């Protein structure tokens, strides 16, 4: 039998997936070594979308740099703004007025919803289900409309400022968000009815791309990726910032660490976000949205690390100031990049179809990976 198997010549097929492939979520490229359809090796290539954002922070003044973070992770721009502005505020020592903190919470949770909705649609598209993509985009469009009404932009908001917000939100807008939350609750029930019990979907994602707790920690995974492997780590709870110091954030975890767990964690997170939005909308207080800050913002001598819980995980900014208006050095910790490190561990041994599903479940944004 063994001799017979040896007599068949076997060859490994090198398959190049990306950077123009429809399912690599942007310009990610991976070179798969295949034996039949089984993956035996992965070589990821990234950097196709590198735009030098870290260096730009040294060449622009603090205020000039404000619109740039929006372009790191263009699907969850509020979190990038929060990370950059938060780091700056921590370094300079600016107190933000309470209303601004509440509103920051609202826009961030809205943005988390829109980001997760896009993930849900594209992930199911990767698995081969067409329709949920269009359903989630319908809902995402409404969130983008809300954010556009508030900030004037659909994706790149430039809404946060050192010391507060660009402008206040009107009561009517808050009412609209409230109505939106009710509407989204109903829609989420629909999604879960449509997707959860689908036998093909379950078989496609269960026990696929498993990463255990220890390995998740060692790879430095964060966000839903880590929580799906049983790491109960959510920065909104573990190292709270802004308004999250005042509210109780539920940490959603699953134990198995497979693609299905990551799906479940993100679905539950969306519902948790809706719950948080309810709390925020009920307790938002009146007052100014901007603290007294000097016109020319200068980063003092010193360094700081400030991180927020983005939809993809720990999004951190390490900022060094030297007393000028420019940052001396800025380093971004993009969650997608770290989550992507586990890729070859996740993929090897699975099939090509699974590779696409697993990559979808990692939820990468190349703007953030390559910066």
């Amino acid at each position, binding site marked *: 039998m063994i001799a017979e198997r040896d007599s068949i010549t076997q060859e490994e097929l090198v398959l190049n997936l990306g950077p123009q492939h429809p*399912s690599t979520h942007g310009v990610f490229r991976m070179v798969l070594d295949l034996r039949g359809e089984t993956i035996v090796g992965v070589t990821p290539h990234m950097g196709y979308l590198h735009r030098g954002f870290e260096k730009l922070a040294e060449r622009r003044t603090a205020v000039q740099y404000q619109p740039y973070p929006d372009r790191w992770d263009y699907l969850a721009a509020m979190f990038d703004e929060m990370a950059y502005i938060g780091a700056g505020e921590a370094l300079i020592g600016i107190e933000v007025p309470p209303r601004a903190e509440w509103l920051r919470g609202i826009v961030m949770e809205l943005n988390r919803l829109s980001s997760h909705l896009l993930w849900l649609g594209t992930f*199911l598209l990767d*698995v*081969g289900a067409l329709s949920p993509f269009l359903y989630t985009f319908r809902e995402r469009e409404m969130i983008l409309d809300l954010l556009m009404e508030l900030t004037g932009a659909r994706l790149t908001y430039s809404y946060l400022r050192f010391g507060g917000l660009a402008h206040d939100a009107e009561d009517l807008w808050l009412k609209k968000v409230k109505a939106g939350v009710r509407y989204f609750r109903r829609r989420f029930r629909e999604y879960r009815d*449509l997707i959860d019990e689908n036998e*093909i979907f379950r078989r*496609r994602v269960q026990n696929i791309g498993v990463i255990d707790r220890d390995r998740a920690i060692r790879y430095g995974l964060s966000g839903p990726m880590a929580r799906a492997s049983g790491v109960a780590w959510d920065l909104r709870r573990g190292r709270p910032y802004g308004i999250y110091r005042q509210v109780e954030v539920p940490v959603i975890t699953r134990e198995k660490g497979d693609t299905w767990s990551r799906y479940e964690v993100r679905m539950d997170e969306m519902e948790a976000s809706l719950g948080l939005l309810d709390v925020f909308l009920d307790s938002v207080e009146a007052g100014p949205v901007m603290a007294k800050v000097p016109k020319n913002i200068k980063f003092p001598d010193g360094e700081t690390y400030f991180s927020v819980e983005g939809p993809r995980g720990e999004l951190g900014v390490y900022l060094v100031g030297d007393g000028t208006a420019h940052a001396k050095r800025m380093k971004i910790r993009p969650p997608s990049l770290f989550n992507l490190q586990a890729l070859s561990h996740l993929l090897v041994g699975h099939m090509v179809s699974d590779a*696409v599903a697993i990559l979808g479940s990692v939820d990468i944004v190349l703007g953030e990976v390559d910066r």
Partner: protein
Amino acid sequence: MKTLVIATVVGMVIPGIAAFLLWYERRLLARLQVRMGPNRVGPQGLWQSLADIIKLLSKEDTVPAGVNPWLFKLAPVMAFLPVFMAFAALPELDPKLNIGILYLTAVLSLSALSFLAAGMGSHSKYALLGGFRATAQMVSYEVPLTLALLGPAMAAGSLNLNVMAWWQQHHLPYILTQPLGAIGFFVAAMAEAHRPPFDLAEAESELVAGYHVEYSGVRFALFVVSEYAHLLLLCWLMAVIYLGGGPAWLVALKIMAMVSVIIWLRATMPRIRADQLMALGWKVLIPLTSLNLLWIAAWNL
């Protein structure tokens, strides 16, 4: 003379119906996905497929570098021919063909060759993987499809499709007496026609377009038309063999119902994986359809 009429009908009308199905699918799928679908060309966008076909026909005929020209050029024709030849056996076209089912299975199994040829000849790894998947799928689902066809043949005591339809009009439709066979036939037919959730040979999100990734223009049109003709053929067979046939309008109604269900499934289901597809074919459908055959054999004793 009669042969000429059949040839004309198959050659002219079937592509027309296939184009209509293409439009119908896009439109219905769009409605299921809260979109509009094509609605600009003609009333309700009805001429959209016609416009697409004209566009494809007027495109430059390209053969990519590095392909095996024979296989590459032959593949679309090999996909197109067997499906269209199979239509000749349908009772609406030729009620007296006594070897209907034998002819159908023989002709339809030829189309597996075209996917292999397209995959091997395209000089593209995506096409190669798609071709392998498609061929494996066709070969494995041929078996349950044939087994499911045998049940009604055994019950009617004839290989003639018209006799089967006639039998059902005087007794019960076979879907009621042989539900296992009907389910097996339906699933196997969807897999044979590469309909989602069994469209892994042309999986957009994995293999971009699978075996026809390198094709454009007329050759691509041939692939698409033969795919929809295949769908039409299998729905037609289902209508005749399991749903009882009947007058032409009734058959058309049954075909449209089947097509609608298949499109509905496309809108709902994620794609199945290659190994799961094989497991479904060999471990579920073949036992199921064999059981159906045994059941009919016992019934007729």
